[in-house]
């Protein structure tokens, strides 16, 4: 059977996968406004799960996901384990917000307690059109948060957002809106873990006001059966700084949509990612950096290591709009295939409509340098540790972009735990 036939079968049996999928979910009554609610419903009525015929899902097959029978739960089984020392912990268990701490310099609101006016931020820069996952999130998310860093406030300790799935077969949509007020500074640590099959569907919306400074470290380490479809939508105003490091250590299928609108002059944007895949995993990073205004810098570095029968996808778009002169935009994606069964689909895309810009992109996918492995082995290092050293060195470029020493060593410890590295 070829792929074409497979796709047609998918279409034939697809008729109402979405409506089946949502049977056990209850629509929320958040004050998100009729327009957003109605358009979400319309999207779900008129669309089904995307197939590989959709350009942006070309390599990411959702058949298994669409066949899941999921429920939602109010249950919070046990307290979460907290990776970092910082006291600022927001835990979200099975999609339920456990508690909302008070953090000096920060306002935190539950979406369920927000006015319609406050909720105007929901989906502000996201196009919901034909996007079933945005629609699913919007209609079925039980609650979410607006986290507002107050003007001129610098929050030194990381704000930890700890997402844990403690039950199998559950659907966890969540929405976190982060507002960096003028000249504020904060570091967010997102951590996803959990057990069992299920779908985690988080949407993050970041609003960086003038001169705001936000760093985000996103650690995805659910499990070999879990599905995770994340959206991080960023809006930057002038003089702002945004950096996100996305580290994917586990998951059956992980899709990250990272969209950054650089909508002010003199902004800096850094997006780095690393993924380590073993047999049976798929990680798909779709990123968009959209330069709307002049005099900005963006840097993107994604590195992947693929083992066993795993699939990696990288699609990185950079737009430089006509008025956005003097842009420096760099993008690079490099991958190492550790097995013959692994495959990587990498597509960097630059669309430049301004003439005075410096942009570059590059994509490489290769094997491990066997000469280097031999060299290390002649020094008494086993084949396995030689490969581990080389892999760590390879993704080291990305890990070194993480400014927090604590986060870095946490990730290194997880690498040993999950990928059995001996270093």
């Amino acid at each position, binding site marked *: 059977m070829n792929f074409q036939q497979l796709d047609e079968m998918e279409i034939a049996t697809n008729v109402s996968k979405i409506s089946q999928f949502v049977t056990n979910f209850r629509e929320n009554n958040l004050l998100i406004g009729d327009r957003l609610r109605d358009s979400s419903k319309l999207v779900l009525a008129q669309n089904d799960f995307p197939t590989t015929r959709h350009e942006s899902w070309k390599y990411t097959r959702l058949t298994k996901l669409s066949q899941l029978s999921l429920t939602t739960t109010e249950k919070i089984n046990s307290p979460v384990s907290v990776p970092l020392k910082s006291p600022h912990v927001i835990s979200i268990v099975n999609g339920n917000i456990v508690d909302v701490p008070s953090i000096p310099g920060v306002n935190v609101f539950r979406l369920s307690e927000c006015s319609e006016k406050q909720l105007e931020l929901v989906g502000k820069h996201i196009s919901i059109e034909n996007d079933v996952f945005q629609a699913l999130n919007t209609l079925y998310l039980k609650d979410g948060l607006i986290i507002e860093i107050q003007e001129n406030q610098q929050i030194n300790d990381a704000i930890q957002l700890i997402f844990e799935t403690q039950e199998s077969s559950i659907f966890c949509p969540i929405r976190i809106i982060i507002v960096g007020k003028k000249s504020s500074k904060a570091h967010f640590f997102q951590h996803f873990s959990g057990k069992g099959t299920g779908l985690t569907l988080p949407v993050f919306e970041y609003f960086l006001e003038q001169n705001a400074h936000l760093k985000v470290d996103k650690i995805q380490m659910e499990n070999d059966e879990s599905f995770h479809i994340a959206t991080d939508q960023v809006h930057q105003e002038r003089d702002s700084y945004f950096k996100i490091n996305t580290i994917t250590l586990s998951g059956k299928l992980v899709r990250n949509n990272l969209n950054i609108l650089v909508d002010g002059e003199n902004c800096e944007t850094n997006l780095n990612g690393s993924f380590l895949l073993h047999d049976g995993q798929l990680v798909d990073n779709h990123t968009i950096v959209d330069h709307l205004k002049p005099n900005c810098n963006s840097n993107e570095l994604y590195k992947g290591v693929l083992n066993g029968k795993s699939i990696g996808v990288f699609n990185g778009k950079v737009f430089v709009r006509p008025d956005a002169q003097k842009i420096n935009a760099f993008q690079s994606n490099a991958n190492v295939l550790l097995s013959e069964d692994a495959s990587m689909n990498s597509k960097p895309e630059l669309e430049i409509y301004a003439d005075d810009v410096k942009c570059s992109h590059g994509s490489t996918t290769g094997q491990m*340098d066997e000469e*280097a492995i031999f060299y290390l082995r*002649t020094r008494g*290092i086993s*084949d396995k540790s030689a490969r581990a050293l080389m892999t760590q*060195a*390879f993704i080291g470029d990305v890990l070194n972009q993480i400014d927090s020493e604590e986060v870095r060593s946490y990730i290194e410890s997880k690498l040993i735990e999950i990928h059995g590295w001996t*270093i």
Partner: protein
Amino acid sequence: MIKINNLHASIDGKEILKGLNLEVKAGEVHAIMGPNGAGKSTLSSVLAGREEYEVTEGSVDFEGIDLLELSTEDRAREGLFLAFQYPIEIPGVSNVNFLRTALNEIREYKGLDPISAKDFMAMVREKSALVELDSKLASRAVNEGFSGGEKKRNEIFQMAMLEPKLAILDETDSGLDIDALRIVANGVNQLKSPANATIIITHYQRLLDYIIPDFVHVLFDGRIVKTGTKELALELEEKGYDWIKDEFSTVG
């Protein structure tokens, strides 16, 4: 220490070593000279266990062990060291991190506890001083951005750290100026002991002014065709290899 007997090895079906014999005893320094393409690097690669080479005949006894049965890493753990003719650059892997891993895996093989961080760093300082390797280079990525001379000194630094029984230096002197040559030779001499041995593969007699060999061998067309003392090296330097070629070329 090592006894190579009638060694035949080929790559891609082409025979390169054609019945090579060599014995090196503890405490000795042997020099191997020979024209380009004679098979000198092939010999060191085969001894180190490079998998592309197929040994078709012969044996190698290393301290009573059948060397050819061991994996590359176990050969190193048994005390064999190869200084590469062309050291490999390994971006992102720091010299010290990799040497600590190597030392500890060798120690584990011997049933010893890992070396403490303090002892390790003291050792790095001592051994890098021995080859006048800037301690900054010791913590940089392996050979990345090193000059030719620095790469060669880094090989000797690694040798000093790992304290092998038998070191094979494959043209470590090629491309070195006199100062670098002196440093490398000095390092090798200081590490010499009655318990270990060195095989120096070289093109140039001048290295042998600094490291006095007990024996000089000529490797030609996959075999050791002549053995002598350091005077043989002088003779080769003077007369080149043509007379060897004339004398030993296999017809056809």
